[in-house]
Structure formats: structure tokens, C-alpha cells
């Protein structure tokens, strides 16, 4: 065999050996170039996933930076029936770890198709225990859940969250600020059974949620809640409220209601006839317009005054002639009506509006009411007379408190504030809610006289149960009859008892309104709401270390007298 033949044979062998590689190369070329896009897309679908993850909602803090609401990861546990290896044993193990009755879980297992929910909102420790079991077919889904470290504290203000969205209260009002961001990630998994993640990249981090800082003082809110619960239960009232405001800034320090209802914000939604607490508004207006003076006296008709043939005004206690201060101290309706009638409809209406009645406070809650104030054209003399002592008109508790704050701070109606600031998660301020004066309602001079008269009402009038020995408290009791919504007439045996006041009277720092709706044990504001005011005031005094204005010897002197208003 010649060398040439051998070479030819080798070449032929090489050719034959290389021949199968040709279609493979062609196939590869076809797949890698012509079908590249389709195939890489299919592969991406197989291994790559774009997942969306809802981040935590923003936090809510009180004025001092104490946490009121935060989102935290919790786990929902479920069973996938088809993947369980030993259902009976797995259910038993799981029920013991989750502290669930085994029979109940087995019944749920039998009823379910493939996906059987077991238990929701597991904490981290429990979820770790379940993971450690390494049971096939047991699923743990992480989700953001809202929790409130202080329990029921300010829940009526904070509201509710459902599926990551605010449903009521501040959570709803500031939902855009607090909403958790939806981040999207591209994930590449390997081909293993579990599909372990090899790589993930952030595609879109979304908008970062912000933190909300309320003006609420956690401790004052707690005191208000505790006290209002105690007095509501003691007097078996249908609804009770305690509101605390800083009169200088209009900042709300506490909004407590009992029974607590996170669906409603009663202090801005609920309306009532303010009754005698409204006499402070009539008094301020009359003094400011000069239609009444401190030296004036009013004959109170011995308890009954026929305004016309159909309307007779009554006082709780028959009174003779009372000074201007006496009318407020003794809470004479007839005296207040006479002050109002001297003031006139136009002036009365102007000041009622100026004090913020008939207008929303601007807190922004969807259900906020502006109260009920009939148009000036429909105001007759009788409406003016009864309106002077807070009947025939309706207000929200926040309106009444805001008006008293205006009296407390020297005559300026402040814009009510519930949100102090909005910050980033790192604490960088994004928005600061500066204090804002709506208008000056009365002069400082008039204000001083009103304060003095309200101080007298507590020291020797119907509000004596609100007095705190050693401290100057100014305030006014109120008791108004409830209206039957069906007939529009007053119900004789149902009333709203209230007390609104502020302290220290000379330089007020706290304005408090206490309301008890339909108290069934004691009925008057002086008997029910004034003691609740006193208890809240005492706790605030102790908490904030407010100095007494009177010496130790002067502290325990409180005048006696009727509290029937």
C-alpha cells in the first residue's frame, strides 16, 4: 500500500468522522442565530421571574417620637394537599407547633381541595419553627402586617388598614404618604427542584413610604382614654369623649372616645347641642361688642321666663338678679338669653361663625361634619335666645374645643393640627405643619375678662368639680337635651353632659373637653364631665410637672354650691 493510499484512507476516515458534526453545527447555528430570540425568551420564562413585592407602610409616631403604628412581616401558613407525604403525621406535627387543635386542622384538611389555609399572621419565631420541620407541602407566605405597639392607644385616630391600604382614620387620610412601595425584581433560578435563586436584580424600587408624626401625646392620650372609659362605665353613657388641645398652637394632644371605634372619628363626625358650654361664646361676643359689661346685672326671672306665648325659658335653679359673672357661674339660661338678645342676631351670628362654628376645622377626615347652624335669615328672636345657651345649633366636639382654645390663647382661632410633620424613613423632614392663625376673634382685653369669669365658674360655680386645688382652672359645664332624630323634638330623659375648660388659666397650655352622651346615673355636666376633666387635668399636671399657682396652704379650698348644669 502506497503512502498516498494510506493518506487518502485517513482523509476519508476523517471526513466520515467529521460528517456527523456538520448537521450538529448547522443545527446549532440555526438555534443560536435564527431562533435565538424565541428560544432565549422561552428560557427566560423558565428560569427568570419578575416578582413584585409590597414593602412596609410608613410608620406613625406621636409628638415625642413614640411609635404608634408600624408594619412588620408576618407569615400565613397553608397546606398543599397534593404535596404532603404523610398527611396524618404532618398535620399532627403542624398543629402541635402552631398550637392548633389537631381535630380542627384535620377537618379543615378534609374539606379543602388542594390549598388549605392553616393559620395567619404567624410571628417570626413560630414561622422559623414551621420552617425547621421541613415538611413538603407546608407553605409559608410572608406578608406585611400592621401592628400597634401600644395596643388600643389612639386606635380611633389611627384607623384601620386592609390589604396594605388605609381604610379609615389617619391611615386612610394619609394613605398616599404611608403606602408601601411596590418593588419589582428580576430573579434567575437554577434548574433544581426548589428552584434556588442564582441572581436577582432590582428593576424598580418604587416610591419610598414616608413616616407620619402626629401631634398626639401618647401619655395624655392614654390618660384621656383611661379616664373617659372609667366615667362612661360609671355613668353608663352611650358614648363618651375626651379631647385635649394645646391652645397656643391648635395641636391636638388627645382624642379619646369610648367605646373605641376605629371606623369612626367621633370628635369630628358626631354633632351635639353644646348647651351651656356655649355661653362662653355668647359672653365673649357681648363683651367684645360692648353690649354687656362686667358691672352689668341681669334679672333671671326666678327660674322661668316666658319669651312669648309658646316658648318659656327655664333655669336649672331659680335665680334672681345675677352679675355678668354670676350668669356664667350659676349657668343661668335666662341670663345668657338676655345677654344674647342684647347682642342681637347679626353680632351673635358673626361671632358664632368667627369662633369656627358651622365650618369644618380642616383636619380633612372624610366624615368630618361642619355642625348645624341655620342661615342667618332664618334666625328669629327665640332662636337667638336659645342659641345664646347652646341650643338650636349643633357643633362637633372639635369645634367646641377649638373655640375654647381661642378664648384660652388670647382670642386667636387656631387652625387645628393633628399632623406635626412628615419625614423620610431616615427622619429627614419632608413637610412640617407650621401653626396657623385662622383669625383673631376677640381682643386680648375681652379675653382676659372671659377667662376670669370662666375661672369663677370653676372656683365657685357649677364647674367646681373640675377644680384642682392650687391650680387656676377656667371652664364651663354644659347639659343639653338630646333631639329625637325622628320627630325633631327634645327627648326629656336623654341628655349630653359636658365640660370644657383650660389650665393654667393665666397662661393656658391645655384645653380639655369632656363629653358624656346620655349618662344614666348622674346627668349634669357638673356631676359627670367636670370630675373627668379634673382627673385628666391632675394627671397632666403630674406628668408635665406644672407648678401650682397657689401656696400649699391655699390649695385645698374649694367653694360649695350646686353643680346642676
Amino acid at each position: 500500500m502506497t503512502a498516498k493510499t494510506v493518506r487518502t484512507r485517513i482523509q476519508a476516515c476523517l471526513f466520515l468522522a467529521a460528517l456527523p458534526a456538520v448537521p450538529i453545527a448547522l443545527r446549532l447555528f440555526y438555534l443560536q442565530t435564527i431562533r435565538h430570540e424565541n428560544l432565549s425568551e422561552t428560557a427566560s420564562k423558565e428560569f427568570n421571574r419578575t416578582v413584585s413585592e409590597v414593602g412596609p407602610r410608613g410608620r406613625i409616631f406621636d409628638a415625642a417620637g413614640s411609635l404608634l403604628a408600624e408594619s412588620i412581616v408576618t407569615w400565613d401558613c397553608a397546606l398543599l394537599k397534593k404535596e404532603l407525604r404523610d398527611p396524618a403525621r404532618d398535620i399532627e406535627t403542624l398543629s402541635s407547633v402552631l398550637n392548633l387543635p389537631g381535630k380542627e386542622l384535620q377537618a379543615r384538611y378534609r374539606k379543602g381541595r388542594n390549598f388549605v389555609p392553616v393559620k395567619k399572621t404567624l410571628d417570626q419565631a413560630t414561622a422559623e419553627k414551621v420552617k425547621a420541620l421541613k415538611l413538603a407541602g407546608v407553605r409559608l407566605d410572608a406578608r406585611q402586617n400592621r401592628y400597634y405597639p401600644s395596643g388600643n392607644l389612639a386606635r380611633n385616630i389611627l384607623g384601620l388598614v386592609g390589604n396594605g391600604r388605609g381604610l379609615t382614620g389617619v391611615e386612610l387620610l394619609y394613605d398616599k404618604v404611608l403606602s408601601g412601595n411596590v418593588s419589582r425584581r428580576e430573579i434567575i433560578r437554577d434548574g433544581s427542584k426548589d428552584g434556588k435563586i442564582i441572581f436577582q436584580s432590582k428593576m424598580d424600587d418604587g416610591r419610598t413610604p414616608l413616616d407620619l408624626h402626629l401631634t398626639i401625646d401618647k401619655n395624655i392620650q392614654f390618660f384621656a382614654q383611661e379616664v373617659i372609659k372609667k366615667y362612661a362605665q360609671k355613668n353608663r353613657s352611650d358614648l363618651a369623649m375626651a379631647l385635649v388641645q394645646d391652645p397656643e398652637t391648635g395641636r391636638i394632644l388627645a382624642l379619646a372616645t369610648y367605646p373605641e371605634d376605629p371606623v369612626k372619628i367621633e370628635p369630628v363626625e358626631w354633632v351635639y347641642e353644646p348647651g351651656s358650654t356655649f355661653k362662653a361664646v355668647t359672653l365673649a361676643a357681648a363683651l367684645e361688642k360692648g353690649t354687656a359689661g362686667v358691672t352689668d346685672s341681669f334679672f333671671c326671672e326666678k327660674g322661668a321666663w316666658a319669651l312669648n306665648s309658646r316658648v318659656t325659658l327655664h333655669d336649672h335653679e331659680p335665680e334672681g338678679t345675677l352679675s355678668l359673672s354670676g350668669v356664667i357661674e350659676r349657668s343661668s339660661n335666662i341670663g345668657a338669653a338676655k345677654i344674647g338678645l342684647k347682642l342681637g342676631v347679626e353680632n351673635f351670628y358673626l361671632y358664632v361663625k368667627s369662633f369656627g362654628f358651622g365650618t369644618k376645622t380642616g383636619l380633612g377626615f372624610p366624615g368630618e361634619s361642619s355642625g348645624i347652624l341655620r342661615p342667618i335669615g332664618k334666625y328669629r328672636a327665640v332662636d337667638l335666645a336659645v342659641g345664646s345657651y347652646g341650643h338650636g345649633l349643633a357643633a362637633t366636639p372639635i369645634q367646641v374645643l377649638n373655640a375654647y382654645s381661642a378664648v384660652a390663647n388670647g382670642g386667636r382661632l387656631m387652625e387645628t393640627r393633628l399632623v406635626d410633620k412628615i419625614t423620610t424613613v431616615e427622619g429627614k423632614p419632608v413637610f412640617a405643619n407650621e401653626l396657623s392663625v385662622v383669625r383673631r376673634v376677640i381682643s386680648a382685653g375681652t379675653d382676659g375678662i372671659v377667662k376670669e369669669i370662666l375661672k369663677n365658674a370653676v372656683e365657685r360655680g357649677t364647674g367646681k368639680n373640675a377644680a384642682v386645688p392650687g391650680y387656676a382652672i377656667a371652664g364651663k359645664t354644659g347639659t343639653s337635651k338630646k333631639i329625637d332624630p325622628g320627630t325633631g323634638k327634645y327627648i326629656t330623659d336623654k341628655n349630653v353632659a359636658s365640660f370644657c375648660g383650660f389650665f393654667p388659666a393665666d397662661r393656658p397650655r391645655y384645653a380639655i373637653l369632656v363629653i358624656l352622651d346620655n349618662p344614666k346615673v348622674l346627668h349634669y355636666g357638673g356631676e359627670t364631665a367636670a370630675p373627668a376633666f379634673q382627673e385628666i387635668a391632675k394627671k397632666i399636671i403630674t406628668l408635665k410637672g406644672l407648678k401650682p399657682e397657689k401656696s400649699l396652704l391655699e390649695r385645698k379650698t374649694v367653694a360649695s354650691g350646686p353643680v346642676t348644669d
Partner: protein
Amino acid sequence: MTKTRALKYATLLSTGAVFFVFAWGNVQATRLGYNIEELRKEIKVLETGNKYLKKEIQLSMSPERLQAEAVKLGLVYPEPDTIVLLEEKATDKPAKGWLARLF
């Protein structure tokens, strides 16, 4: 060995080396990917754990809990007239001892 053959071997080796480095790089990237993912999971678990611990602190600091604990100890709220507030005088100088400096 001729120069041409040496060049052929060098080309073959360098091509092999390039493929090896490429393959090694890919293997390393995958391995690091797993490591990163493990660490990411670990961070998440630790962050959640941290949040849960903070939650415990907040819960124990809640006024309701504090009051319950205080009541258990027999403590009561003081009345305002049982408190005597002492005014700080301008002449009162802060203590300079080692204990005062420590706290």
C-alpha cells in the same frame, strides 16, 4: 519542533485557556450568586428579627403595660398637691465628682 507547530500548540493552549477562564468565571458567578442570595436571606431574617425585638421593646414601654406593672408593684398616681417642685437656683452648680461625671 518547528516554529509553526509551536505556534499551533500555543494557539490551542491559549484558546483552551480562554474557554477555561470563561467557564471558571461562569461557575464562580453562579457560586457567588448563591452566596449573595444566602446572605440576602440572612440579612432579611436578621432585619425582621431586629424589628421583632424592637416591637417587644415598644410593647413593654406602652403606657398600658407600664401601668399594669406599676399597679402590680403597688404604685399609685400621685395627686398634684403631694408633689413639691423645687426650683433650680442660678447659684446651684453641677456636681463635679467622678460619679456625677460618669452619669
